[in-house]
Every structure is written in structure tokens, then in C-alpha cells.
């Protein structure tokens, strides 16, 4: 395959490196670093001259290659005691290349399977006996967490105030505790603060439980009573579910 065709179909620096190794018919366990580094840099230069987007990862690998090359050129240095005896500076890169190669092959095998809508097809006609919601003319879809956050992002995308965009992890924890407390109270009618905390006594949980109670009291959704100055605080639902 010619240079020109190959250029924009590299999937990253590892892919380019694998290509160079294959092209030069090199043993992957014994890469001539000087040769490969020179060819790799020449490729980067060509990509740059063609104004192709050069992702930062390509440059990172370039510096790795140059670093390995310099290590191989240096005579064994006594002062570099940290290096393991006889450790090949190429070893880590080789390992990474081998692992990447495995997944590249796996991707190819996935693609060669009988693919839905390419090789095999399911029933083309829309389903019969539609459910009630579909009769209302609304398309139904199966959703997961990603669809949920994507939906929320779409909604708030048009907002001016940036704070609307932020999702506060602390607010989430607080909402969790509020929901839990309301659920527990509607089951048991009344509970003490200690009962609400339960066996799990990590700091975060105690703080959020406390904040949740304050929030619920502020919203007048629960009421709290204390029997005497040091007595247990009892919490009741203020509204009927």
C-alpha cells in the first residue's frame, strides 16, 4: 500500500509503528530503534506538511522512541543503578505493541462476523399489536444511564447560566438521602436520628443525613421533636404521602 493512501487511515501512533514494523519486515522483539525512529519521524513530518491533524499522542511516542534510542546508544552506565540488570529499554514498548496488535486482530474478527443490517436482517415490518403508548404515536426507546444524561444535557444546553450545567455530586448525595429518609419514614412513621444513620457510620453519610433532615424540615416535609435537652430527636412525616 502506498504512503499516500496509508496516511490518514492510521488509528494512532501504535498503529503507525506496527505498520512500519510490518513494512520493513522487522522482528517485533528486536526492533532496530534508530531505523524505525527515523522512519516514524519522517512520517510525522509528512503528515504535518499535508496539514493532517497530528494528535498529541504521536508526539509522545516520538519522544519515547528518541528516549529509547538514546538509552541504547549510551554505554552501560554504572551510576544508573536503578535500571534492572540487562533490561531492554524496548521491552515496555514491545509489550504495548503486542497488546495493541491483539486487539487490532480482535476488531478485524468482529468485523468479519455476520453483521446485523449488513449480512443478516431481522423482520423488516414494524411490530404488530402495538402497546398502548405506541398507539399514542410516541416512539418508544430502550434507555440507559447514558441516554438519561444526554437528554439532560440537551435540555440545559440552551441555558445561559453556566451553573445550570454543573451537576453537583453533593446535591446528588443529598437527594439520595432525602429519598431514603422519606421512604423509611413512610414505612415506620417515626424514627430517631440515630436510627436513620443506621450501622453505616462514615462521615459523609452522617453529614448528608443531617443536611437532608435540615432540607426536609425547611421544606416542612418532616417535623422533628426532642424529648428534653439531651433526649433523642424523633422525626415524623409532616405530610401524608
Amino acid at each position: 500500500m502506498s504512503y499516500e493512501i496509508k496516511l490518514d487511515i492510521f488509528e494512532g501512533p501504535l498503529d503507525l509503528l506496527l505498520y512500519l514494523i510490518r513494512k520493513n519486515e522487522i522482528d517485533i522483539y528486536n526492533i532496530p530503534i534508530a531505523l524505525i525512529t527515523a522512519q516514524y519521524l519522517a512520517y510525522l513530518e509528512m503528515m504535518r506538511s499535508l496539514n493532517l491533524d497530528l494528535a498529541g499522542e504521536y508526539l509522545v511516542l516520538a519522544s519515547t522512541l528518541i528516549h529509547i534510542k538514546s538509552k541504547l546508544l549510551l554505554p552501560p552506565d554504572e551510576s544508573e543503578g536503578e535500571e534492572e540488570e540487562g533490561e531492554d529499554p524496548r521491552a515496555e514498548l514491545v509489550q504495548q505493541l503486542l497488546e495493541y496488535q491483539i486487539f487490532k486482530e480482535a476488531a478485524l474478527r468482529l468485523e468479519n462476523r455476520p453483521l446485523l443490517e449488513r449480512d443478516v436482517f431481522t423482520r423488516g415490518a414494524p411490530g404488530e399489536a402495538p402497546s398502548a403508548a405506541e398507539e399514542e404515536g410516541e416512539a418508544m426507546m430502550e434507555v440507559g444511564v447514558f441516554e438519561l444524561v444526554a437528554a439532560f444535557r440537551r435540555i440545559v444546553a440552551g441555558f445561559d447560566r453556566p451553573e445550570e450545567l454543573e451537576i453537583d455530586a453533593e446535591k446528588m448525595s443529598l437527594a439520595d438521602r432525602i429519598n431514603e429518609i422519606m421512604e423509611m419514614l413512610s414505612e415506620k412513621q417515626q424514627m430517631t436520628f440515630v436510627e436513620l444513620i443506621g450501622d453505616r457510620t462514615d462521615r459523609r453519610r452522617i453529614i448528608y443525613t443531617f443536611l437532608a433532615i435540615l432540607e426536609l424540615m425547611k421544606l416542612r416535609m418532616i417535623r422533628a421533636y426532642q424529648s428534653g435537652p439531651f433526649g433523642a430527636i424523633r422525626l415524623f412525616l409532616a405530610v401524608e404521602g
Partner: protein
Amino acid sequence: MEEKVAIIEALIFASETPLTAERVVEILPGTDKKEIVLLFGELVREYEQRGSGVCLREIAGGFQFRTRADLAPWIRKLKTGRPAMLSQAALETLAVVAYRQPLVKAEIDRIRGVDVSGALKGLLEKKLVRIVGRKDVPGKPIIYGTTRKFLEVFNLRDLSELPTLRELKDLQE
């Protein structure tokens, strides 16, 4: 089964609309309409004779596989109670409740820019959203939040496991 019949069977099965003989002639070179009509008839009879649960019917000038009309009660049982199927409106409303709870309906209306009454009712019926309480302001509006079933359906340990918008943005670049 003759290979040509097998191809026609697969074509009818995969077609989104009832398949006409004319369309088959376009796809299979060297055939004519008369021959295809005969092969359609052959397939209809074959499904009948096998006592199959599926039958080939002539609909709107073409042919389409349908489940046998007398099996409709079973098919209806299949179609009820599918999990986590939501409309776009329901999904968006649920997203607002999940990320902004506890909140009142007016707040959801404001964020979505539409009246969410219908969607909210559906979510309450599906037990994905529930009434948490009432806000102590004039009119005592109802406060909504998500349910334990919501966590179950979306496979979340708790609400803090919900992905943040920043995480989604990082994926987009």
C-alpha cells in the same frame, strides 16, 4: 425449498413494507411477474400447510408475513410489560427530575420549556418518579423525586452514580 423461493421468503421477511411482485422482479434478474406471483402463492400454501404460527398474507398489493390472527392474545401478552421503554418526552422529564430533585412541577416546566403534566403522570404510573412531599409556599405545590425503582431500572447504586454533564462533555471533545 427451491433457492429462488428461499430468496423471496427472505426478501418478504426483511422488507419494511409489503413486498410486491414488481419489486422482486427488479431484484431477481431473469424473472417475470407471472413467475413471482406463482412463487408467492407457493409460499402462502407452504406456511398454511405447516400450520405455522406465521402466515403470508397479501396486503396493499404486496405480500407480508403476519402472525396468525387467532394467536393475537399471546402476542398481546408479549407486548405488555416491556422494561425501561420510555418516550423522548418521558426521558427528558425523568432526566430533569433525576438531576434536579427534589423539585416542583413548575421547575420542570421551566427547564423543559413545556407543560410536563402528561409525561410526569406517566412516570408516576411507571413508578420511576414519586411524590416526595409538598413545598410550604402558597398553593403547596407537590415536590417530586425519583424512586428506588428508578435506581434499579437504570442500574445505579445511588444517585451520585449518575454521570455528570462534565463527564459527558469530556467524552465529546
